[in-house]
């Protein structure tokens, strides 16, 4: 009896304490934010540090920033939390998840949250190419945060050894083939150094988006309900990719592994590689030779898709929480913080004004490769993103790989991918 009484008394005290605590910070907003990590390095510490700074500057907002695995894991975690009673209010997720999130009614457009002219100006301050994956139906749903693009890394020492000008990397497809032939070194039948490698596992659709854009063709419309897989320029682009290995012999035939490509480049097994800017910091740290970074070469024009993660605000949130979430996102994308984020991670600075900060200006001056990705943004386009994204992407991935390993011709593979994509997207038109 006595113990139950004690127990009850204890509970009461706790409840009272909680009540008091709540009363004293009645205006405080608690935010939960998920973020994925997609590149190497101690990124969780960088994010935690920036969130801490935000809490110091905004004592009335508590942020619980939670690491949520890779992009896929983060989406699963966010959607699971949304369906239970304990959702997050904001999250960084893959920029191409936008249509799925809209379809599920999970996110709100930023246009509904911004009010003041100041906030609107902030919304318009990002690179337009980076906004493409965050905008649809005339509204902005995603704010660029951890964004990257594809660039060409090349081994300047290998260029010198082959009698090429290390300061003039190939700028067109023809020059790429020509330089590649000079750079491919054979010892009998085995190739000691390939001219170039474009990875075709992991994210083949992403690399292919670059080739198609260079040939003047996008892969989908901005409503996300139509794909252009069988357009003549798309087929040509895939044919060129296959030719690099089969006809010109400057790239291994078959597929090139995404996950080990950086290692291959660092060990001199290829003189050029196309890869994410997310690799810049690692290449810089580990390269034992003089390397350069260049924009991807052009056929009809230059081009590369952007990639990476955007901020979203979830629909299941109170107006106060949305305001607080936007405050947080604004804080994290301020020019100084964007500059710091870019330097520490290798991701792009998402806003032109970030590149005018003292830190980033200095960084780009000391390390010019960091500016290449920025300058290429002018020619960049959205990453493949549609409704039924996972399945549509898989169709294109499979088509690309079946052509590279020689099972199908480019026209065949892309034609059938387009037919199946049409079937999936029909209901969204």
């Amino acid at each position, binding site marked *: 009896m006595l113990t139950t009484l004690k127990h009850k008394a204890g509970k009461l005290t706790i409840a009272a304490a909680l009540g008091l605590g709540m009363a004293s910070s009645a205006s405080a907003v608690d935010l939960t934010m998920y973020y994925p990590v*997609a590149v190497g390095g101690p990124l969780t510490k960088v994010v935690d540090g920036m969130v801490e700074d935000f809490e110091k500057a905004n004592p009335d907002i508590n942020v619980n920033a939670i690491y949520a695995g890779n*992009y896929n894991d983060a989406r*699963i975690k966010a959607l699971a939390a949304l*369906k*239970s009673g*304990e959702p997050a209010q904001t999250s960084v997720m893959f920029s191409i998840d936008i249509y799925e999130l809209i379809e599920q009614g999970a996110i709100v457009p930023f246009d509904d949250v911004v009010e003041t002219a100041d906030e609107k100006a902030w919304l318009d301050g990002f690179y337009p190419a980076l906004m493409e994956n965050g905008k649809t139906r005339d509204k902005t749903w995603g704010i660029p945060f951890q964004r990257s693009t594809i660039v060409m890394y090349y081994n300047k020492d290998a260029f010198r050894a082959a009698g090429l000008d290390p300061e003039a990397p190939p700028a067109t497809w023809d020059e790429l083939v020509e330089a590649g032939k000079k750079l491919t070194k054979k010892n009998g039948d085995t190739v000691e150094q390939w001219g170039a490698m474009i990875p075709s596992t992991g994210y083949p659709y992403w690399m292919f988006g670059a080739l198609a854009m260079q040939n003047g063709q996008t892969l989908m419309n901005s409503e996300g309900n139509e794909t252009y897989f069988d357009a003549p320029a798309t087929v040509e682009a895939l044919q060129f990719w296959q030719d690099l290995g089969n006809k010109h012999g400057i790239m291994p035939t078959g597929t090139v592994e995404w996950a080990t490509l950086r290692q291959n480049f660092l*060990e001199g097994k290829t003189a050029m590689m196309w890869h994410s800017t997310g*690799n810049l910091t690692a290449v810089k740290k580990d390269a*034992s030779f003089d390397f350069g970074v260049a924009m991807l070469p052009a056929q009809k024009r230059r081009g590369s898709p952007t990639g*990476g993660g955007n901020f979203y605000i979830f629909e299941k949130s109170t107006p106060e929480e949305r305001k607080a979430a936007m405050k947080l996102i604004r804080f994290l994308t301020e020019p100084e913080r964007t500059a710091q984020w870019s330097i520490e991670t290798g991701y792009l600075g998402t806003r032109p004004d970030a590149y005018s900060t003292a830190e980033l200006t200095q960084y780009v001056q000391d390390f010019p490769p960091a500016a290449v990705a920025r300058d290429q943004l002018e020619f960049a386009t959205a990453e493949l993103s549609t409704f039924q994204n996972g399945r549509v992407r898989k169709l294109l991935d499979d088509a690309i790989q079946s052509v590279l390993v020689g099972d199908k011709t480019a026209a065949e593979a892309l034609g059938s991918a387009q037919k199946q994509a049409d079937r999936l997207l029909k209901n969204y038109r």
Partner: protein
Amino acid sequence: MRTANLKEKISLHFEYGAAYLLALIWMLPLIYAFWSAFHPSEYATRFDLLAPLTLDNFREAWSQAPFARYFLNTFLLVSIILLAQFILCTLAAYAFARFEFPGKSIAFALVLIQLMIMPEVLIVENYVTMSQLNLVDSIVGIGLPYMASAFGIFLLRQTFKTIPKELEDAARVEGCSALQILWKVYVPLARPTYVAFGLVSVSYHWNNFLWPLVITNSVTTRPLTVGLAIFGAPESGVDWSIITAGTLLAVAPLLVAFLLFQRQFVQSFMHAGIK
């Protein structure tokens, strides 16, 4: 006669050769992990006997996440799950093996159906349940969906069924109650099955990733696998030296335990018929 002998010998050698080959193929990833974890990253995919050895990879991997805490969490997690599984599965298996009650075959069929459902399908539903129980972001919350293991119930039921009824009758004559019979007759005789099931359960939950990631939010609850995942780096490609060092750290306790108790484990598996 002699040719028959020779034939036997040859086929025996052949069998041994094949067994060693298979073992080697199975061990290759582990061997590679040891190679690249102890060498600087330049040598991660280049084999050079004279490559310098280093422990830097381990130091760097260890510093990137609070691994000491994650070890504790994982250890608590697998212990809690294993204990709960042993208790629940033993009682359920005993009931299914030795008692008659209405709806027994339907109940057992339901247990078997559970074997066929991938746990990943239930992530959202389980999350909702945990949220209603107020167990999101707790170690018990990670373990609860796995505690009534259908596999464990099935396995123990089969084992209990093979134990001669006469032993139970003898115990009853001595005046044992049903629970005493379970404790004194069935559990000791099913020891190999417990060891085998324990090994499967511990290694599964030691390695489980997606559900623990989804249901947890803080350092105090997250297991090792979630800590390891930050080395995954899908966008930039993996730093093999660091990730293999982290992996070796994470599997080391299991690896050591297996090497120490190898003989017992293998015998238990033969006994319990799990392959």
